[in-house]
């Protein structure tokens, strides 16, 4: 087995299997599966993210040890793995968190060298990270925060900023995506929000900013089943042929609601195997040990 899983295997995630999986899920959940009409995976679609041999450290400790990943427009990827495998670190490195230092490798985002951009320029270029623990910002209203963020994106595209009134119309529309009440807008960002409300607020921001690449870091953690469905429904609604989603998750549960085209398993700072939707199911029933063993066998072989 090759150390690096690129090029990515197709098949499991192809469109043919997609519809089968779709029916299966729909049955399992009494047909209450969220609307899921994604456009076909197109092998020739634009490469949104290309990560090569990425190595990164935090406080001098190497966490990412040669990670490879390619994400094209229209795809949904899930990255699974045990605690400490480097999943969250990867998401922070993509977004440019200052605590993480990239020591080797490269990240191309839509043909651009991502590592050269400041965190806020990465955001306006189209990278969105839904945080595992969204921060509270007392004194800054959600509405102002969203408007300033939205206008920062417009400015980066050389578009005029929109005024308060036009923004209010726009944001009312977006509230539907996550079934949020307008009263949320006038509260301070995430302050006093429940876990579920915080996660919905993240998806609201995603809906507003329409990123090319959304990375959802453990978005399912701490959600009850209804909140999970709402959040997943929002993500499904926003996924289209021009953008891509990377889900970082521990559990298979989220993948019942957001169907990935590819499932990657991370261990020790790299992706050790890649499969389709079924891989997640296997991990759910058999745990991670067999994957790790296979990987070790492959390495030593």
């Amino acid at each position, binding site marked *: 087995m090759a150390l690096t899983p690129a090029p990515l295997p197709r098949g499991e995630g192809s469109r043919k299997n997609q519809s089968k999986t779709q029916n299966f899920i729909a049955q399992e959940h009494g047909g209450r599966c969220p609307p899921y009409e994604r456009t076909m995976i197109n092998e020739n679609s634009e490469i949104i993210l290309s990560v090569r041999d990425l190595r990164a450290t935090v406080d001098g400790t190497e966490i990412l040890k040669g990670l490879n990943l390619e994400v094209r427009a229209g795809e949904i990827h899930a990255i699974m793995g045990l605690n400490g495998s480097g999943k969250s670190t990867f998401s922070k490195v993509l*977004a*440019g*968190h*200052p*605590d993480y230092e990239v020591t080797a490798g490269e990240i191309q985002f839509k043909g651009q060298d991502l590592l050269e951009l*400041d*965190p*806020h320029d990465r*955001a*306006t270029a189209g990278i*969105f*990270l839904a*945080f595992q623990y*969204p*921060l509270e*910002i*007392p*004194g*800054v*209203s959600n509405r*102002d*925060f969203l408007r*300033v*963020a939205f206008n*920062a*994106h417009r400015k*980066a595209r050389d578009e005029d900023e929109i005024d308060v009134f036009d923004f209010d119309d726009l944001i009312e529309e977006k509230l539907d995506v996550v079934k949020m009440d307008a009263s949320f807008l006038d509260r*301070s960002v995430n302050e006093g929000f429940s876990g579920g409300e915080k996660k919905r607020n993240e998806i609201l*921001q995603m809906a507003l*900013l329409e990123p090319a690449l959304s990375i959802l870091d453990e978005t399912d953690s701490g959600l009850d089943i209804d909140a999970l469905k709402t959040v997943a429904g929002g993500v499904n609604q926003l996924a289209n042929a021009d953008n891509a989603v990377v889900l970082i998750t521990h559990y298979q549960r989220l993948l019942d609601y957001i169907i990935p085209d590819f499932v990657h398993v991370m261990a020790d700072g790299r992706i050790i195997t890649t499969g389709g939707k079924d891989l997640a199911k296997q991990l759910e029933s058999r745990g991670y040990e067999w994957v790790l063993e296979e990987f070790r066998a492959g390495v030593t072989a």
Partner: protein
Amino acid sequence: MSASVQTLVSQPYKYGFTTDIEADAIPRGLSEDVVRMISAKKNEPAFMLEFRLKAYRKWLTMKEPAWPNVKYPPIDYQNIVYYSAPKTQPKKLGSLDEVDPTMLETFEKLGIPLSEQKRLANVAVDAIFDSVSIATTYKEKLAESGVIFCSISEALQEHPDLVEKYLGTVIPIGDNYFAALNSAVFSDGSFVYIPKDTKCPMDLSTYFRINNGDSGQFERTLIVAESGSSVTYLEGCTAPMYDSNQLHAAIVELVAMDDASINYSTVQNWYAGDENGKGGIYNFVTKRGLCAGRNSKISWTQVETGSAITWKYPSCVLVGDNSVGEFYSVALTNNMQQADTGTKMVHVGKNTRSTIISKGISAANSKNSYRGLVKIGPKAIGARNYSQCDSMLIGDTSSANTFPYIQVQNSTAQVEHEASTSKIGEDQLFYFAQRGISPEDAVSMIISGFCRDVFNKLPMEFAAEADKLLALKLENTVG
């Protein structure tokens, strides 16, 4: 990134220029002769000289306060110039045309146009340069409503009875070390008198500028609001950048009679010294308001951003029944700045009420302390106080302290105190950045959110300015 947290706070001070103008200054040092000389130069009435000499003798017996949470080398009071006035200034100005054009330019540069054509709409300005008042705008218009707005030197010539009646009644000459010093040597300041049942037709404003590197500034402001009157007063301050420290020891006294109200706002932007703590103003100021009448109200709003050291407690003495005292404050410290600031609310009359909202922001290696006293006297039946003190830390090396003192001498009083401390951390800024918002904008949003309760109390045009000022002061702290 914590090194970069610092970079955002350090924006060059843009008012640090010096005006090259010949000054009429008296020799350094302080003695009875100097006090007499100041009084003589200003051609003051006899009572004023007596007042000054009494204060000077009192000062000699007093000691500099050691209790504030600030540190500085001993001040050599004999090495300060106690009077400095621009030489070209005629004794009394017939019109603005006689003001030295360099001086007009200076104020123009500071954004305070004094010339007739460019006056601030609906704000009357008294501009004070080193020790003297340069010009007071809109004087005639104010006089139509009976409002007196002039320099205190002029008031001593034109309205000596009023000055004698009120000067030192709120802050006695021996109140504290710096108040005694001010009472002995004060050079100029503003005088405001609002007659009975008069709403002052425009906002009044004093703009203080220290220019001379060796001179101290000791100004004195006295505002009297007669029964049923009201006034809004704004104070702004800047100074050039010098390596040495300048002493600013001012006094502001407010008197409000029955049903009168005074709103006093300060945007203080004295030079704060460089990032190593070299230079900057020592701002040792005594401000106190007396709610003498029933239903009177005094409200202090301050935005403190400058000075190497701030020692200042704008206070209210609530004597009249049902009188109201308010204190809204934002104090920002950066680099090596030290601030020990707060308020005193002294409840004497029945059903008196006071509100304290204090927001302290400290960045870099600065020290920011809130010190406040709420005192409810035995006769202050039904008195109420609400205090809220919030601190925000930027970076890991700044400090914030809160020292609340509460003395209650009767059981009908209600006193509430709330306090909080928060921190602008890298993770918060990363969250903003991840949504496309630059660190500068993020800090400015967090700070204005934090200060909103106070900024809402500032007059409109000053609120916008205060917002900008804070953002500027914090530029490069984070990022």
